[in-house]
């Protein structure tokens, strides 16, 4: 078996260690003997590359870079992305990339940047003087059927931990929220929701990076991608996640969330 990981704009969208998500998926495949290829979906990539990856990973960008990305992600390339995600290709979009999947992003300086409009959400920056939403974040994933599938993989409530740092505030329309904030700001610091879930695409402000400390999400992406590709149920070999468990325990303790079920 093998897996093609599409990495959205590696040099433009990798502000907060987001490369860690790609490394995590790559290693977890290699450790299980699953062949893995990383396909950079950058400006030089053509439409067929976008259309043939099995899982898509995207990270954060600075405003200027985000604008360059949005200028490039147009036409046939945008159509291929839409088709992939609408068709159920799993993806993890962290930091800035959820903004790119939404209707638009209004930066602190400059023009509104249109997104793919795939997720019914909008983002606006309240202005350069407004404080950023910064800090460690924890949320329980509630979007279905994702939450149920993650429980099966992890045998514990799917609580994600990470770090958020965003100036923009995101407001959801009809799209399902990814999770409920336990600690931190989440989408906008107002409504208690974090991220969004559409088809099999996970969108979240949580970086850290997201996957190494939430290995159940990494395994869900791998499993879902393989099941789609090979059209058969896939059971992944268990890996030793004791370092991730210890990192999680330390953070949940710090956030006074250690008493949550499954994290005693």
């Amino acid at each position, binding site marked *: 078996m093998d897996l093609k990981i599409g990495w959205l704009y*590696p*040099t*433009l969208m*990798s*502000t*907060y*260690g*987001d*490369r*860690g998500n790609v*490394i*995590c998926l790559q*290693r977890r495949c*290699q*450790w299980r003997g699953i062949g893995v290829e990383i396909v950079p979906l950058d*400006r030089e990539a053509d439409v067929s590359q976008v259309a043939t990856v099995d899982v898509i990973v995207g990270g954060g960008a*600075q*405003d*200027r*870079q985000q*604008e*360059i990305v949005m200028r490039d992600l147009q036409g046939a390339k945008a159509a291929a992305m839409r088709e992939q995600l609408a068709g159920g290709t799993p993806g993890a979009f962290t930091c800035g990339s959820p903004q790119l999947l939404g209707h638009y992003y209004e930066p*602190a*300086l400059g023009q509104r940047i249109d997104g793919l409009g795939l997720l019914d959400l909008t983002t606006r920056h309240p202005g*350069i003087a407004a404080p*950023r939403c*910064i*800090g*460690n974040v924890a949320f329980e994933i509630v979007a279905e059927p994702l939450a149920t599938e993650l429980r099966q993989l992890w045998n514990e409530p799917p609580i994600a931990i990470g*770090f958020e*740092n965003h*100036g923009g505030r995101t407001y959801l329309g009809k799209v399902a929220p990814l999770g409920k904030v336990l600690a931190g700001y989440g989408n906008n610091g107002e409504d208690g929701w974090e991220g969004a879930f559409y088809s099999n695409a996970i969108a979240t402000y949580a*970086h*850290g*990076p997201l996957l*190494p*400390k939430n290995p159940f999400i990494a395994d869900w992406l791998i499993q879902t991608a393989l099941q789609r590709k090979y059209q058969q149920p896939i059971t992944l070999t268990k890996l030793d996640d004791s*370092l*991730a468990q*210890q*990192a999680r325990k*330390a953070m949940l303790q710090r956030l006074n969330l250690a008493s949550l079920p499954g994290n005693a």
Partner: protein
Amino acid sequence: MQPRILPLLFAQVRQGAILVAGTNGKTTTALLLRTILAEQGWRVTHNATGANLINGLITALLADANGLGNLRTDYAILEVDENVLPLVLRDCQPRYILALNLFRDQLDRYGEVDTIGYRWREAIARLPDATTVVLNADDPTLSFLGQNLRQRVLYFGLNEPDLYLEAIPHAVDSIYCPSCGQRLNYQGVYLSHLGDYSCPQCDFQKSPLSLNSAEWGQILIGVYNKYNTLAAGLIAHDLGIERSRIDTVVANFRAAFGRAEELTVQGKKIRILLSKNPVGMNETIRAVQELKQQGKTSVVLMALNDRIPDGTDVSWIWDVDTEPLVALGGTFVVTGDRTYDLALRLNYSLEQFAGANLPNPPTLIVEPDLTEALQIALNKTPVDETLHILPTYSAMLDLRHLLTGRKIL
């Protein structure tokens, strides 16, 4: 604190204030420039402890004032935090502003490199013509800044293709044209996004250097310290100090606190290499890798904290290229507030970690307690080798305290 006190103090510095800004290298560069000026007999005020916020500047200046608040100093060399620089410039007029580089650092506090570049441009544009701006031409954001200023601008940088890296590292921020957004063409990269470049679309290119870097030696180790040498040297030379006198100081220079500083503890040699952001850590890893290949070091202690001076976001460790270092094998002791984050980073660095089929497989020792971790690392270090410690800022202070306070002896 009286808000007008800083401009009042500035105005009293006889020969003028020199502000040093940039993500990496402020302390080392300021210390070198201070040493050069002091060698010429000038009285120099310097915020030596790295206290680079407004209060730190005021405290440093007041320390050299008499009871009436009168300053008795010729030069003030002030390290200024990149986010605080515009605030200082609002009502203070320095003689020089030195900008070393703009890398990704502590984005959790400050937002993004582009935003900082924009704020600097706005703040410097308002200054009078008497201020000289000294910039790193190899950094596109800073070259662009200089090309849009009315003031006199001097540029330092490298013109030595022999020092090019083989590839652009991942931890890179500005490889897009600051003028038109097109991806820049690099003839070569010296460090991170510092290099020789031009824009294929508009007429933006690297600013011409005000010196020939090949004619300059350097302090300490690493290309990053060559930049620091050129920056301090260029200002000293512009102040009329002879090259031979500058070169003497460069040749005899000793490291600042935790920056390639060497100590001996329990009969073991230790070298502390402050590693506070991806670019800094890539460079310290580069140095350790070379020593490892020469068989001079097998034990590395890495300490990751997430306190305010370190930046509270530790995701940057995933932008560091740890892979080649781990692949060389040896013992890695990890510690600090975010021990397990660092352990995960190293663990994910190899296709096979445990039982890896390598001549010298890596061993990972995870110890959250700093004192314990340091003792383990010292015990593991053979007598004829040097223990290398790669800490973040607050971890460096704690480790130095342990080492020099003889707490563990």
